[in-house]
């Protein structure tokens, strides 16, 4: 049922002054020099590897596995479970939501904190060799335009439904590192250019860890459609 605020929002819809340009980011995986063969080595490396390595194993790996609905959140969690057999640590790593961070440094600090605390309470775990090493990688990123540029909500929906899931990831998840605020390109545009504040908030609340990226796309489209009708 439409609320008063909802109705007020619909009546306040305006034509955007700036169109929404759908972009796409493509990545080429670079193999880093650092690797960790146990959890102590991982802790040391987490503190020193370049930001783009942290980005790769958290934000990017989420994109690479966008089709998995549950059980995969970042490479540190995956490695802790399957190479180190440390399910408790894996759960803690997995609970980190990358969207709570607007800069890599904060995310790195959180990962270091988790591992440091874990190793303090599990003395023997640090030096136990992993089944396979953790190879630190990073991505060279190329941002490309797509054919879609929206200057109406209908065109926005058209673009949203047709771009690749990488474009969705680019605008919805990576965006906060660009914007340095807890938002995403879609919400930002819908609120500032169209006046759809409630829809913008609803989109920001979508749970990316309980959805595939296709699921995220569908939810955004549903929220925007409901705002139009």
């Amino acid at each position: 049922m439409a609320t008063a605020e909802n109705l007020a929002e619909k009546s306040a819809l305006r034509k955007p002054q700036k169109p929404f340009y759908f972009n796409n980011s493509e990545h080429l995986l670079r193999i880093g020099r650092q690797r960790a063969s146990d959890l102590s080595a991982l802790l040391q490396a987490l503190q020193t590897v370049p930001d783009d390595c942290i980005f790769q194993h958290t934000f990017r790996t989420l994109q690479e596995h966008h089709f998995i609905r549950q059980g995969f959140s970042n490479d540190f969690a995956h490695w802790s479970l399957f190479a180190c057999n440390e399910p408790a640590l894996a759960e803690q790593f997995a609970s980190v939501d990358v969207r709570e961070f607007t800069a890599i440094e904060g995310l790195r600090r959180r990962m270091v904190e988790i591992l440091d605390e874990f190793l303090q309470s599990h003395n023997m775990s640090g030096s136990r060799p992993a089944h396979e090493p953790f190879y630190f990688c990073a991505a060279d990123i190329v941002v490309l335009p797509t054919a879609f540029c929206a200057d109406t909500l209908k065109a926005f929906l058209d673009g949203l439904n047709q771009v690749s899931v990488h474009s969705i990831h680019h605008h919805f998840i990576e965006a906060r590192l660009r914007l340095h605020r807890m938002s995403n390109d879609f919400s930002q545009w819908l609120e500032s250019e169209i006046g759809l504040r409630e829809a913008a908030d609803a989109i920001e609340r979508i749970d990316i860890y309980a959805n595939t990226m296709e699921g995220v796309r569908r939810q955004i489209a549903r929220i925007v459609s409901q705002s139009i009708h």
Partner: protein
Amino acid sequence: MSSDDPRAISANPTVNTQARTEVPRRDVERRSPHSARRASDRGNNRPLPASVLTPPTPPPPPHLDDYGAIVGQSQLDTLRYLAKEFKGKTIKMVNSTAVGGGVAEMLNRLVPLLSELEVLTHWDVITGGNDFFEVTKAFHNALHGAPYQLTQAAKDIFLMYNEQNRRRMQFGEDLVVIHDPQPAALVLSRPHTPAHWVWRCHIDLSNPNPGVWEFLRPFVAQYDTAIFSSQSFTQQLPIPQYLFYPCIDPLSEKNKELADSQVQQICDEFGIDRSRPIVTQVSRFDRLKDPVGVVQAYKLAKKYIDCQLVLAGGGASDDPEGATVLQEVKEAAGNDPDIIILDLPPWCAVQINAIQRASTIIVQKSLKEGFGLTVTEALWKAKPTIASAVGGIPNQILHKLTGVLVHSIEGCAFQIRYLLTHPEFARSIGSSGREHVKENFLMTNDVKRWLLLFRILEQAKGQLSHAA
């Protein structure tokens, strides 16, 4: 890479093999129809059906637009956009064989697709005598960790043929890609060319023979960048290293969609009963693929659940060790009528495709593996896959997400039972496995990676010239 496809011989319009003096013996044998005269066993040593005894006519190679229905228009748009800035630029690919082997199979697809994107790509093959290929074969094994005493004579042979090829070849292209160790020393031409030089290593260098690697390393270090198929296959080098996963072609005979009637017909020909669960391993009869271990796992599982086992592969008729392994597999199978052993000729890609599609579960219980493209093929067909955690397989199988990893015969047996009795979970990992392949291991991904690398190298050069 996956098993060789002899049809590549006539399907390749661009390769320059002018100076190749000799086709390796294994390639000749693979093209021989006589090698098809082998047995298919279902307890009773029944011969293979006549339909597989001669190689079929190769289909025309696909065009870029043909991939649209599979990867989506947006992916093709990305490729076209990336390629736009390289119109008129040229790439040279150099490897050591035009036919046979996964690299040739991959180049057969990659080269025409890049050229269709108007990034003109030449493919050259180095030449050499038997002595050269004996040395490079020994290098290949040694780089995989086999014991080997590197001699000065071997080094001289390697360097002499590389020098001969270097003098014969022109390197006027904008990007030169040298595949694998055999032509690695061609990089000595680099100072005389404007090109970016890339070394694409398709083999596992994680545990190389130190003598051979120390000999090759100074050549590799002269490239602009090196590319590996898995993080775990790399060595420390002073140049940037990138990860390019090996890829399959979703439109090849081995991976294209098949009508159910065709799958049924092929199963009927081989005596495979589609009304009962089918567990399959596709691989050469090679101890490293552990086919006997698969039979043992099947037998353990069969105590609890009805199923058939299909072991489909080749290599037994042109490899003495393969014949021994085949015999061992037959002995392990005994007279169980539900174990179907197929020693197929190498052109049976459609048959392999159909068997994979008919399977309920696919197994790859290798003891050692390269990247494991048979796993990629299984995942692409959305098949719940059980595989050993070796080589590049963990890149493809995320345990319990895109497949199941195992470490023993008992583990494999348990997972066969589990997947056969939990079809919903099996379907779910199969479906994620297919998405994983679509995202990472299709030929269009390979084309994109080359274009991205070209762009990154050009940008780096631009920045360097700007700084200068």
